[in-house]
């Protein structure tokens, strides 16, 4: 009886192995464009190079909440003592990556993949103050910058101090979306606090110190005065809309949204970008591999493809207008001059590495946005 069962099991196993394809499950936080990117762009390339493999991408929704869902799923698998998790590659935000590394939900893989050496930015090692070195690779970076209308602004302010003077001479010409209308406004506020509290490094690297609150509030009270001279816009897209209609002359925007709008003809091609000193925040999305991914080897191959200079050039930069996840010097040779110029005309790679900053550590972040409601809005 036992032998017969054994033979049956072996036969079944063989049948399964030959007939069924392997499915690589990619789960991604973020908007629908992330799922589209994996399904329409990466999957066909990967499937062509790996016969018998099928890539299946699932989205979990935008923002940190999307990453939170991925965390909850993996955490549940871990607590259930499961040894084969059905997520092979995940794409997550910084905040979740810190938690997931801490709770040992991720596999350290960067040193195992050939593209691991191509990353250069600090974000590959540090996520909002948490050490994630080895566990993550940035898929792309996005950055908040000032967009301005050169017809109305001949010499754009190069720093927050210059901006403060500029709005007083040009009232109601600068617009941003507060803290409740999307991250470009939030990023502007954290950038303001970094600039005026003089604690930029501390806010980004920690350690957290609750006694910094008065300095944050002081910087915010300056912002309250600044707000008298600016226009509040309805959301990330609202700022872009108002710029395009000429209702404001300058405002903080996400670089990738800006270029996508320009490519779609929804934004005047005249509008230009500038990244002020001491900087505005940006953030990457990370490729990670869960600690017990069912197909960890395939997952590594998938990330090798996704982080290859060719894919970063054609997919990340050319099609989606994101900044590359790996060092731009490896991407430039793979890109035609026009596409390269488009992304780096207004903001050079040097400026980007100097003034492109991370968001503050999450406790500081909370202090700043809550402080904004307390100090600025009241």
């Amino acid at each position, binding site marked *: 009886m036992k032998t017969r069962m054994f033979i049956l099991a072996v036969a079944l196993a063989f049948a399964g192995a030959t007939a069924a394809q392997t499915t690589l499950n990619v789960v991604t936080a973020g908007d629908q464009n992330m799922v589209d990117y994996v399904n329409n762009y990466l999957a066909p390339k990967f499937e062509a190079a790996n016969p018998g493999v099928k890539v299946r991408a699932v989205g979990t929704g935008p923002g940190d909440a999307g990453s939170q869902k991925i965390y909850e799923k993996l955490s549940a698998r871990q607590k259930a003592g499961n040894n084969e998790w059905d997520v092979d590659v995940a794409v997550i935000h910084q905040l979740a990556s810190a938690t997931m590394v801490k709770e040992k939900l991720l596999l350290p893989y960067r040193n195992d993949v050939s593209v691991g050496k191509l990353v250069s930015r600090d974000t590959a090692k540090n996520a909002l103050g948490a050490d994630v070195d080895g566990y993550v690779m940035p898929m792309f970076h996005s950055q908040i910058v000032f967009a301005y209308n050169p017809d109305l602004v001949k010499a754009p302010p190069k720093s927050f101090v210059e901006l403060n003077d500029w709005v007083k001479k040009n009232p109601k010409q600068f617009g941003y*979306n*507060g*803290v409740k209308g999307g991250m470009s406004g939030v990023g502007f506020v954290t950038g303001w606090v970094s600039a005026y509290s003089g604690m930029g490094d501390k806010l980004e690297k920690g350690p957290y110190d609750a006694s910094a609150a008065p300095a944050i509030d002081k910087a915010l009270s300056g912002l309250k005065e600044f707000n008298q001279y600016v226009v509040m816009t309805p959301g990330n897209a609202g700022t872009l809309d108002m710029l395009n209609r000429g209702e404001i002359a300058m405002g903080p925007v996400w670089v990738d949204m800006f270029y996508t709008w320009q490519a779609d003809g929804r934004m005047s091609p005249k509008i230009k970008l500038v990244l002020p000193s001491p900087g505005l925040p940006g953030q990457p999305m990370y490729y990670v591999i869960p600690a017990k991914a069912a197909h960890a080897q395939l997952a590594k191959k998938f990330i090798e493809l996704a982080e290859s200079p060719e894919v970063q050039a054609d997919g990340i930069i050319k099609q989606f207008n994101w900044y590359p996840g790996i060092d731009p010097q490896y991407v430039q040779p793979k890109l035609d001059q026009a596409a390269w110029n488009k992304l780096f005309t207004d903001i050079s790679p040097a400026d980007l590495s100097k003034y492109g900053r991370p968001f503050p550590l999450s406790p500081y972040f909370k202090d700043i946005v809550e402080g904004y409601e307390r100090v600025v809005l009241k």
Partner: protein
Amino acid sequence: MTAPMGIFRGRGVALALIAPALAVVGLFFVAPLVMSGVVAFRGKGGEFTLEHFRKSFDYYTTDLLFTLAIVLLSTLLIGLVAIAIAGYLTLGGHPRTVAVLRWLYRWPLFIPFVVAGQLMRTFLAKNGMLNHVLIGSGLIEPLSAQSLLDWRGIVVAFVWKQAPFVTLLLAGAMAAVESQHIEAARNLGARRLRVLVDIVLPQVRGTLLVGLVLSFVTMLSVLSVPLMINPNSPTMVTVDVAYRISTHGDYPVANALCLLSLALAAIGAVFYLRHAAAQVEGK
């Protein structure tokens, strides 16, 4: 013996019939409400606390007042617009204009709030369609054009969206008013406006009140319009609730704010119940 059994059976059937509806109400309305109440009053360690309400008032008193003011003003304007349109539909002397108006006024009913918000965003902007038309027709100077995307934009969107709903109810009620009353007044030389105010309106007051209360409560709960038109301070409480959850993951304060808007909605409910009770007693 058979009679009580019959009653019992009748009751059983009745209970079985309302059970699904009751279950839906209990499961999807009462239970979340109770949970919301629990979370709003529960501290980190599970103890009873008023901390979340203190924070709500500390941060959002302006927004609560702003919400109330916006919704009250919109309700008032909706009432005026609805009376004007329904009044003309009932008393209007020009059949073709009445027909066109009847066909036209219902359109916003079929447009979702989020779409109305999006329409207003481009319509009321500083360089939007409204100002273009006003400038083009020479009514205002280009320099004096200003954006209406603040509290005014929210009010415009609400009135535009809700007035047809109240008009629909009101026009129906007005059509049911005995035409002899109107004709008698007209024969005695009353002008149309006077007929509307003194003869028709008093008879449809109840319907108007119900329509306005329902609009009041609906507008309190709209997130999309304030989010799209003016999510900055001051803004409506719905935006703050969404913000507490999506940015801070702060369900306790969000729930406290929800209970506070429930208290605002209760003002409307009191009017509604009074009217309903008066009607039952009247019968």
